[in-house]
């Protein structure tokens, strides 16, 4: 039976009406096959406009509607909802875009624009004629969350979700959670004691019955889709049994290995068995297999022989035979909180980094400020342990340098440099702190005041110019720079130089992003769906982003973003099931030859070969209706529901016949 069709043409104020003759278009539309009602109205999306559509559907018993207006991205939902509210299946309403694709681009030719509008309406009517009434698809929802990365971003997101009543697993690559925040001494803009703040949060995580932490772990494989992810977790052995270990530290004394301690940025050394950081929460030693002589090549001198720590342990807590384990976790949502690394100072040979011991990066300086750090909180220079009297802090190192390094601003360094310089001045009263800067970016609450106070009361000497080079001079370092404000070339003598290195995404992020099916930008930061409106959503549904893995930022912004992901996930979990659009691919069982081309082409991994029927199935929850498989299938076995090839061809045919007419 032929459908009774209605056409509603919107003026969009003058946006459409000034270049499309809406009366003429309505009259023409009324003449088209199957149309029982056609009219125009000034603002169809307004309440009275929607009422008009609803009333007409009821009065005339319409079973197909075309609203000719702006882009479907604007109001498709609005009108489909309206139609649904009076009992017409929403999918029998379609939008004919006569604004972006017609009136806006043909402003000087009303007759032609009007003819084009009518042909767009005709094409859309022909589509509606073959549209099927559809129901939304429901998808199961596992209300558990996996957080990848246990820095402050991961910790805060996990705590919020766990407190809301959901089970959370944290996957942390390192032997302890905390991330870079555990290396930081005090924070701007109020000199809060960071280890204290962090310990509180880590204790909360460890005590929370709903949070499970996998340390030494990474994602091995990710399967599934929004609401139903299956994460396989690969865990490196800990070797030390935390149930037996009393943290006496005897093993630490006997280990013959000495390597640079990464946590202290090479300012101290550690054994192959060591305490990962100075926090109370990481008292139990960890053993790094790569450094341990026991695991060295068996044909080398030491290979397989050393068992010093095992022998020394009075509790028998060390077992060098432990092997790596795999675990699976089923979750409905994932938070990517993988954080950052500092761009390696060795990329800056002109600053002597890596060669001159008294040129250090900013994280190393944080370690010097930590009362539990390698110098017990004393700022001492690495070369001879003397108190540096002249310290030069260089900002933007590796940042804002599109020619050779990173084009972006690393956002936290202006502020932490001011903080470090102030802490240095508070400790070394007779010392001078110089800060080489290009701009001071202090754009958050109380940040500007914090910097100004440093200049006014702690006499930080800000010198505006980018440093050309640092060399070893006579008994001190020489920093060659300029002061663009006075127009001079400047040389500063220094005892210690601190580089505020750029932040860059964590090592291994490219491989991880591929595994998680999320996109990254040109600098390898994780990409959000929309910088303004969907800032914590990744390109894959159900995967969210928080912290410095998405872009460089300070703790304040990291935590805000982490809490936003928790909020988003709670919104998702407030339903019992997920709802998906039914406008997806379908397969004609009798035509599909099982060639599998669609499986390779689908960018969302929605196609899967059915082992029994040897026909390629569509995973309804994952398919985004992009149409790639439809174009790729050599047998024409796939179609997009309500956008079939037949419908498209008819629409194109309508355009073709009309374009001859005009």
């Amino acid at each position, binding site marked *: 039976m032929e459908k009774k069709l209605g056409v509603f043409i919107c003026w969009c104020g003058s946006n459409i009406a000034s270049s499309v003759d809406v009366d003429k278009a309505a009259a023409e539309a009324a003449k088209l096959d199957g149309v029982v009602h056609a009219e125009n109205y000034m603002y169809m999306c307004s309440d009275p406009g929607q009422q008009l559509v609803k009333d007409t559907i009821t009065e005339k018993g319409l079973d197909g509607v075309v609203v000719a207006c702006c882009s479907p991205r604007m109001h498709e939902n609005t009108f489909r909802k309206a139609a649904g509210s009076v009992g017409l299946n929403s999918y029998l309403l379609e939008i004919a875009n006569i604004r972006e694709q017609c009136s806006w681009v043909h402003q000087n030719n009303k007759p032609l624009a009007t003819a084009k509008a009518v042909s767009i309406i005709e094409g859309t009517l022909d589509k509606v004629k073959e549209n099927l009434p559809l129901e939304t698809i429901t998808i199961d929802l596992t209300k558990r969350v996996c957080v990848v990365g246990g820095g402050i971003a991961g910790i805060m997101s996990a705590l919020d979700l766990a407190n809301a009543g959901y089970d959370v697993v944290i996957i942390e690559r390192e032997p302890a959670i905390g991330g870079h925040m555990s290396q930081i001494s005090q924070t701007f803009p109020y000199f809060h004691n960071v280890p204290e703040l962090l310990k509180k949060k880590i204790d909360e995580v460890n005590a929370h019955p709903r949070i499970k932490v996998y340390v030494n772990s990474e994602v091995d494989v990710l399967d599934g889709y929004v609401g139903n992810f299956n994460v396989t977790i690969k865990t490196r052995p800990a070797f030390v049994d935390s149930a037996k270990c009393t943290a006496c530290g005897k093993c630490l004394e006997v280990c013959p290995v000495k390597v640079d301690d990464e946590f202290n940025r090479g300012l101290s050394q550690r054994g192959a068995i060591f305490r990962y950081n100075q926090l109370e929460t990481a008292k139990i030693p960890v053993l790094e297999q790569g450094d341990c002589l026991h695991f060295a090549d068996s044909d080398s001198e030491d290979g397989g022989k050393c068992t010093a720590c095992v022998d020394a342990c009075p509790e028998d807590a060390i077992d060098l035979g432990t092997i790596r384990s795999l675990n699976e976790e089923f979750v409905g949502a994932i938070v990517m909180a993988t954080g950052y690394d500092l761009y390696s100072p060795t990329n800056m040979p*002109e600053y002597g980094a890596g060669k001159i011991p008294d040129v250090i990066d900013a994280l190393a300086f944080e370690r010097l400020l930590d009362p539990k750090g390698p110098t017990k909180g004393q700022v001492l220079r690495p070369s001879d342990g003397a108190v540096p009297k002249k310290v030069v802090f260089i900002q*933007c190192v590796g940042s*804002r*340098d*599109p*020619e*050779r*390094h990173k084009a972006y601003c690393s956002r936290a360094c202006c502020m932490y440099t001011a903080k470090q310089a102030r802490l240095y001045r508070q400790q070394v009263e007779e010392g001078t702190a110089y800060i080489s800067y*290009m701009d001071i970016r202090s754009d958050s609450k109380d940040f500007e005041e914090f910097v100004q106070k440093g200049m006014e009361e702690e006499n930080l000497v800000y010198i*505006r*110019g*980018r*440093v*050309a*080079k640092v060399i070893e001079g006579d008994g001190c370092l020489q920093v*060659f*720079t*300029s*002061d*663009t404000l006075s*127009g*001079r*070339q*400047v040389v500063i003598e220094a005892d210690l130089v601190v580089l505020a290195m750029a932040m860059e995404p964590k090592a291994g992020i490219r491989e991880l992003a591929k595994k998680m099916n999320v996109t990254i930008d040109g600098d390898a930061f994780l990409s959000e769906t929309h910088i303004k409106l969907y800032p914590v959503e990744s390109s894959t549904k159900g995967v969210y982003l928080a912290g410095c893995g998405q872009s460089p930022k300070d703790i304040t912004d990291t935590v805000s973003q982490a809490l936003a992901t928790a909020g988003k996930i709670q919104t998702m979990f407030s339903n019992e099931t997920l709802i998906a659009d039914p406008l997806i691919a379908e397969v004609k069982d009798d035509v599909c030859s099982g060639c599998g081309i669609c499986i390779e082409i689908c960018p969302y991994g929605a196609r899967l070969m059915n082992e029994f029927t040897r026909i390629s199935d569509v995973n309804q929850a994952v398919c985004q209706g992009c149409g790639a498989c439809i174009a790729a299938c050599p047998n024409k076995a796939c179609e997009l529901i309500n956008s079939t090839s037949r419908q498209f061809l008819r629409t194109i045919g309508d355009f073709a016949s009309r374009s001859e007419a005009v």
Partner: protein
Amino acid sequence: MKTVISHSQVKSDFVEKVAEISGENFFNCYQCGNCSAGCPSVDEMDLLPSQVVRYLQLGLEDEVKNCKSMWVCAACMMCHARCPKGVDISKIMESLRVLKLREVNAEAHIDITDFSDDYLKRAPQIAMISGYRKFLPL
């Protein structure tokens, strides 16, 4: 001293000509000062290399045309090697010299034998080199 900055200045023929000859976009420069920090000739300059670029950005033609810096520049290209934005100041300096010479006229073309040994010892090399340049129509 008050300086008036106008559209006609910022877009002046002179500025456009320097841009054209050097092939450099002055507005790439964000005034970080790295060029000035590393330039070996600054001691004898009246404007820092970064200031030359700044003056060009503002279209301060007279100051740029009469600066000593362009004659002192050793064309060592240290500034270009260090510039985070890829600005080649040595090319800008060269185009300033070329423009200056074109302005003076063909008589400025030099013959080395016209100068005393003593003068040659004192004269900036870069000025002598520029003196040998071919002349092009303005």
